[in-house]
């Protein structure tokens, strides 16, 4: 390896461990000096990239499955949940406690948007949910599906501010529309929702509230009306 080759390689891969590279560095003072100067820049670069990691990241990862109850635990999912429960027991996190306590003090609208922000699966899942799963979800919140709802890519039952709720994602024009049916909640006026680039509406319905959240509020009112026609509360 000559000096030109060394310096070119050093610029591209300062931590190169190839024998020829290391040998040249040891025998050529000029290149050793060149490498030393570059090392200072590399150290600064390394430092700049080392952004602070959330203190509770590990705990959140290990606790996460407990925040994602699925409706029909079967096969692999069941094992995942079982394991997740054990993991949770092993690593009950402060963040979990914080989440639990704050969930009882935040307004419903805020709680709802925070929940969505922490539920990436809602935006990532692409498989269509089966009708059986949908019926089970509606049943779990005391409702019944009595008509055509459209393509649903995600569904889940959860508690929002203590209210039994259902979260489903409708796929409309290839865009995910998050729907939350919050049973027995009592917000009586329509409200706008907003969090980062998510927007939505929260509306009073017969048995609580319905929230529709997407990247745009276009068509949300129409979808809300359509849903109310096909969902019967029991």
């Amino acid at each position, binding site marked *: 390896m000559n000096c030109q080759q060394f310096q070119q390689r050093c610029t591209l891969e300062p931590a190169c461990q190839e024998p020829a590279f290391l040998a040249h560095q040891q025998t050529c003072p000029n290149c050793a000096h060149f490498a030393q100067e570059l090392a200072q820049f*590399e150290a600064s670069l390394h430092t700049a990239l080392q952004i602070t990691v959330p203190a509770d990241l590990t705990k959140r*990862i290990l606790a996460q499955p407990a925040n994602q109850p699925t409706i029909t635990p079967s096969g692999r999912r069941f094992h995942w949940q079982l*394991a997740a429960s054990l993991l949770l027991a092993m690593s009950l996190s402060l963040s979990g406690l914080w989440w639990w306590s704050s969930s009882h003090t935040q307004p419903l609208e805020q709680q709802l948007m925070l929940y969505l922000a922490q539920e990436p699966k809602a935006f*990532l899942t692409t498989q269509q949910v089966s009708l059986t799963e949908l019926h089970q979800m509606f049943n779990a919140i005391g409702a019944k599906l009595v008509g055509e709802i459209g393509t649903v890519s995600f569904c889940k039952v959860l508690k929002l501010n203590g209210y039994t709720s259902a979260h489903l994602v409708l796929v409309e024009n290839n865009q995910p529309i998050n729907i939350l049916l919050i049973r027995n909640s009592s917000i009586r006026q329509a409200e706008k929702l907003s969090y980062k680039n998510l927007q939505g509406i929260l509306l009073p319905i017969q048995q609580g509230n319905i929230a529709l959240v997407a990247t745009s509020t276009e068509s949300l009112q129409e979808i809300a009306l359509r849903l109310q026609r096909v969902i019967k509360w029991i």
Partner: protein
Amino acid sequence: MEEIKQRQSRFINLVNLLATDVFRYAFWLCGDREIAADLVQETFTRAWEALHQLIDDKAAKNWLFTIVRRENARRYERYQPDQERVELDEIAANGNYDTSTEAFVLRRALAKLPQIYREPLVLQVIGGYSIEEIAQQLGLSTGAVMTRLHRARQKLRHALQGTE
């Protein structure tokens, strides 16, 4: 039950060992701490589900980085978020970081760096990958990776020297 315990133990080891690097990589991919945390959680969820496919734990970092990249790409496909910009203020607000002017300038320059230059650089510096490994990860030729790494560093140096 024993099998599940072994799997848990293996998974916890991976989380403890690699969550930090995976988060940093995710952050520099998406530019947002919250989304990065979500990406990391989703990545480890998928990792748990597919843990049986990971034959050698030495390959775990590579495997997890691949999942992060895929999840980030899927997020863009489905979600198209407006988050190209790295949240420097948010980094600053989180304390415990290098506050020197140099680090600030470098972070700002990194945030401005187009993704095609930033990603190989992050893989090299945070991931510790060789040029050949980066090429394999990104599906590029080694020549293309070298060019991108060279340009990335050049832009950062110019930023530090105040010539950009």
